[in-house]
């Protein structure tokens, strides 16, 4: 199996915060790799390093055999790496179709406008937006905007797709639908790196899991292995969210 993405001792520091620390892992072609970790573990920063929003302080990122370390986002996109955002970033005053057409036009194949329209329609259909093509992006519901993120990334016909919490904020029916969509995308030969807080969903979807804590890789392996790893369990019990939950239930009792 060839590697589609290789990280080699990648680090990034923001002032006093070591957001990503000496991270090394590889991803195979066609794989769904889950990235989990408590809030502030550096998952989204890692995405920003991969697609060129930030340049790493040290280390190398190789994508499909090309060194993309520190390249501008639009160059990385051209190599065939697309992403969705945790906080949706629609082109608000453009229609769903136009949003997807931008993805198709400037993605991996650098398509001319007419051809891009077809690819955009197809991508919108996969994400379940084909009934809202002419709707302005700002009028979509939150679930619709999440789908738009996915459709737009897909329209770029990427080799690797980075999904940043596409399930967050969706109701159970929508989650089920979205998981189906992600599976279908993988069947088309796209590798997927996914960040998700919904444990059941990510354990179910991923071929392998990488656990990130305080910017460092804590564990890596099959979902079942990772779930039983004592260091991982400990890290999650130290999760401020979980602490808050415990506190909440304590208050409830008193």
């Amino acid at each position, binding site marked *: 199996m060839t590697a589609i993405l290789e990280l080699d001792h990648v680090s990034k520091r923001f002032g006093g915060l070591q957001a990503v620390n000496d991270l090394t892992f590889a991803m195979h072609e066609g794989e769904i790799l889950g990235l989990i970790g408590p809030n502030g573990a550096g998952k989204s920063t890692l995405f920003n390093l991969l697609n060129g929003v930030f340049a790493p302080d040290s280390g190398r990122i190789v994508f499909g055999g090309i060194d993309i370390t520190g390249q501008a986002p*639009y160059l990385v996109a051209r190599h065939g790496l*697309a992403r969705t*955002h945790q906080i949706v970033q629609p082109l608000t005053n453009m229609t769903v179709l136009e949003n997807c057409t931008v993805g198709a036009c400037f993605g991996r194949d650098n398509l001319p406008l007419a051809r891009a329209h077809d690819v955009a329609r197809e991508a919108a259909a996969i994400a379940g937006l084909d009934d809202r093509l002419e709707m302005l992006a700002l009028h979509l519901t939150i679930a619709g905007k999440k789908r738009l993120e996915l459709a737009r990334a897909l329209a*770029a016909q990427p080799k690797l797709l980075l999904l940043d919490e596409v399930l967050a904020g969706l109701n159970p029916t929508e989650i089920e639908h979205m998981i189906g969509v992600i599976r279908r995308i993988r069947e088309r030969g796209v590798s997927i790196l996914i960040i998700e807080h919904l444990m059941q969903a990510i354990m179910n979807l991923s071929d392998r899991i990488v656990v990130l804590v305080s910017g460092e890789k804590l564990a890596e392996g099959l979902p079942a292995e990772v779930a039983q790893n004592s260091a991982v369990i400990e890290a999650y019990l130290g999760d401020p969210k979980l602490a808050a939950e415990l506190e909440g239930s304590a208050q409830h009792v008193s």
Partner: protein
Amino acid sequence: MLRRPFFWIIALVIAAFVAAPAIGDDVDLRESLALATVYITLASNLNLMLGYAGYINFGSIVFFGLGGYICVWLVDAHGWSLAPSLFAAGIGVSALAFIFGLGILRLRGPFFALSTIGVVEGVQAFVQNFGPWGGSSGIYISPEVFQPLGGAARALWVIYFALVATMGLSLYLSYAIKISKFGLGLLAIGQNEDAAAILGVPTPRYKAWAYSASAFLPAITGGLYFFKSAFIQPSDAFDLSLSTEALVVAMLGGQGTVTGVALGAYLYEELRGYLLTSEMFSHFQLVIAGVLLLVIVLFFPGGLMGFIYSRFPRTQKVLE
């Protein structure tokens, strides 16, 4: 493009501008329409940055003034004829804008807008102290330069038709960019620049090209305008209020639309002409412009076209 109705609408507008004063040999109408072509050219090209890429450029007048200077200087000091001087002005100013653009387009929002005012002030200060261009007293050209165009009276008609042609090209340029992949990239930048870059739009290059393209035709119009007056000086060439008026006009008509900006420019020019000549409102036009801008921003953010589109949705398919 030939199959699209909008192409023929632009052609009709150009024909009307040519025919209206020519039929009755109406010199007054010609002068009024000449000024309208200048406004339409400036506003349409400004719209490439403002309406498409979402960058507010207070300095569009620099293109107009520099184009005027280059053209007048080439005609006066080097004895060039009008056509190559105009072309040189367009190319020269576009190239300069591209280089400036790569620098100042790293700034965003209000910072970019402020830097464009800096460009106006900087260029004006340079020209005021630039000996070959006559410093602050400017350049006069002798009426002899009108001879190759068939004498002064005929030259004014030739210049008018050239102004109309430049306006027509501006409208076609705006339209051609709007329906192209380049235009789609610019619109994406205007909506959300970071998201556009992540989707693969080469943002620095696209912005610099748009800035440079928005300089070419205003430079030629500036060349024609100052050749026509046979005189150019820094305070006229780099008059910041004309830049501001171009912004008002673009917003009045509906930024991002081709029709709206042209219509806004035409209406504004007519209104301005009326205010300037009426006894009661003489030199009141900037006050009116200010009030208009406030009303537009508060009540009609889509401008004239936004209003028309919402009232008559079908027009959206025909009028770009």
